């Protein structure tokens, strides 16, 4: 019975493994720290409650879509429909929450739409064996069209108290994010969550070892959809209304954040903490450039350059060695 390690040794092993998983993203954490310091210097209000709240609110939707993209990329998939799904979540929230359904009904509708769209996409990709990139590209038109049907032009409303709660002067967004990270940790401990990395790293081997590869991948798509429409709900609360194209920029940014965070395109490589750090870096980058007075145009140019640089430099070093 000595093969069962004691609880104490088990705990030590856990932290050892977690520390090893940090190795790939350690330099990223340093860059994020540097940007955080730059942000704090430019914007000293960060250390007040409302300043911290505003800071986390600008990060929160990007963090959610980065997680939505990362969970797909870990299973070897990808989605080019994240932006359209965020828009759909926003317009559903803006049209239902002020109506007879109320906030709970509206939130349920947003969650159901996200889970449903994600599961349908996952079913098409996994069970019908179509390439994810093309399915989600076509899906972005279908989902974007649905968003236009729900709300043809910007409008609708989110109850003011909800906007104040989520995007007011309290760091509710940060608390929510921590709760989501905790749920992610719990999900990784379930059979489906455990299958996630295996399904991405070596699907054939995992399949032959009895891992529910297909179920894990469909579940990943469903969770990704839920996170995306959730980000849409938050964006609607932030702006107080809905806009059928508000989410478009999130597609590129979600991929950029996940890749900055060290998630590999081939599946099974990377960690969620990396993706979160990547999204934080992207969010900080945009804020710092804004404070430095870059025009939106110069921001595009700088963002393109920084993303290539950040992705290329570690790869380049690997090749040199």
């Amino acid at each position, binding site marked *: 019975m000595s093969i069962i390690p004691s609880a104490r040794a088990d705990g030590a092993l856990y932290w050892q493994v977690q520390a090893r998983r940090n190795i790939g993203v350690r330099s990223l954490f340093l860059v994020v720290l540097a940007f955080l310091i730059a942000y704090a210097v430019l914007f000293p209000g960060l250390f007040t409650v409302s300043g911290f709240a505003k800071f986390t609110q600008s990060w929160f939707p990007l963090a959610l879509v980065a997680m939505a993209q990362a969970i797909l990329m870990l299973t070897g998939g*990808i989605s080019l429909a994240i932006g359209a799904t965020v828009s759909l979540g926003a317009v559903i929230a803006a049209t239902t929450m002020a109506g007879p359904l109320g906030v709970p009904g509206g939130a349920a509708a947003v969650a159901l739409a996200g889970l449903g769209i994600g599961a349908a996409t996952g079913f*098409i990709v996994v069970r*019908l*064996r*179509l*390439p994810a*990139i*093309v*399915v989600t*590209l*076509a*899906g*972005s*038109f*279908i*989902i*974007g*069209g*649905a*968003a*236009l*049907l729900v709300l*043809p032009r910007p409008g609708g409303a989110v109850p003011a108290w909800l906007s104040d709660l989520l995007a007011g002067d309290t760091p509710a967004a940060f608390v929510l994010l921590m709760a989501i990270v905790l749920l992610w940790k719990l999900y990784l401990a379930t059979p489906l969550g455990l299958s996630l990395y295996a399904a991405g790293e070596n*699907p*054939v081997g995992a*399949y032959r070892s009895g891992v529910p*590869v297909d179920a894990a991948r469909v579940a990943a798509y469903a969770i990704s959809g839920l996170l995306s429409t959730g980000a849409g709900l938050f964006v609607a609360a932030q702006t107080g209304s809905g806009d059928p194209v508000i989410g478009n920029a999130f597609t*590129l940014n979600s*991929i*950029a954040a996940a*890749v900055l965070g060290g998630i590999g*395109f081939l599946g099974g490589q990377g960690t969620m903490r990396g993706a979160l750090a990547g999204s934080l870096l992207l969010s900080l980058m945009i804020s710092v450039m804004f404070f430095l007075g870059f025009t939106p*145009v*110069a*921001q*595009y*140019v700088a*963002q*393109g*350059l920084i*993303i*290539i640089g950040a*992705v*290329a430099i570690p*790869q*380049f070093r*690997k*090749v040199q060695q």
Partner: protein
Amino acid sequence: MTAWTDSAGGRRARAILTSRPFLTLAIVVAVWIAASFASRGFGAYGHLRYLVELGAVIGLVAAGQTFVVIAGGIDLSVAAIVTVSAISLPLLSWQADPTGLASVLAVLALTTAIGVINGLGVALLRVHPMIMTLAMATFLQGLLIIIAGGSAVTAENLLVHWLGNARPAGIPAGILLWIAVSVLVLTLMHATPFGARIFAMGANPLAASLSGVPITSTTLAVYGISGFTAGLAGVLVLGMNGQGYVGIGDPYLLASIAAVVLGGTSILGGLGTYAGTIPGAILLVTITALITVVNASPGWRSILFGSLILGLLLLSGRERARR
């Protein structure tokens, strides 16, 4: 002896009839026949000629995309490159250049260079193609707004005007250009060592590299070709439109990838042909034209477009089962 030739010929005929390009072509013809019964004027020669002329732009963008996809990559910057071409051409006009040929060549050199930079990032810096080309698109988008300032620019270039409007022997010049490019692309892809290297690289880059395929230069060439054909498409679309503006190339990103995949080329690389992309491009403009005929709201139009592409993918884009 005769029987042997007959059966070989029969086998050959069957192989062509069941191939992906032929299947896509058959779908196009079936849709055209059905649509001309449903809507008067759809099947008129003038309308079909117009559809093929629109398809030429997609076909040109998709030519480079086919090379990149077969080589195992993807080019998400084609839309931005089309816009770069359509906007920088009117800005580059010289007094000493009455035909406009020099400025067209200069623009094509510029877009080819953009493609080669994509290739440099992919081959030397080892950035994933999707990230490299998306970042390039973001970068170009910013640059374009700086250069053009958001207003439309009018082209006063004889060659560009001729490409967009002339009809030698009743056939639009754009279609003639597409035919010429198609012949070149098909020859390059299927009858040269370069073409063979692309397929080898897409099927298994490591094996290709160990067998002596020069990965770096081939990658540069593939992305360079994509920049070149996207630039050519920009010239054509500028000629047809008369004006260039930021966003003029946007529809061609999804269209080029969809045309490639609908034509039976595997998005995973190593398998496919431009012969399928050609009917794929015509199929896409046909779908768009049909949706316009239906006269639905923008939302429904978008849903129809996405669903039709998804439905067609089920016919032609499935991957192998895992066992």
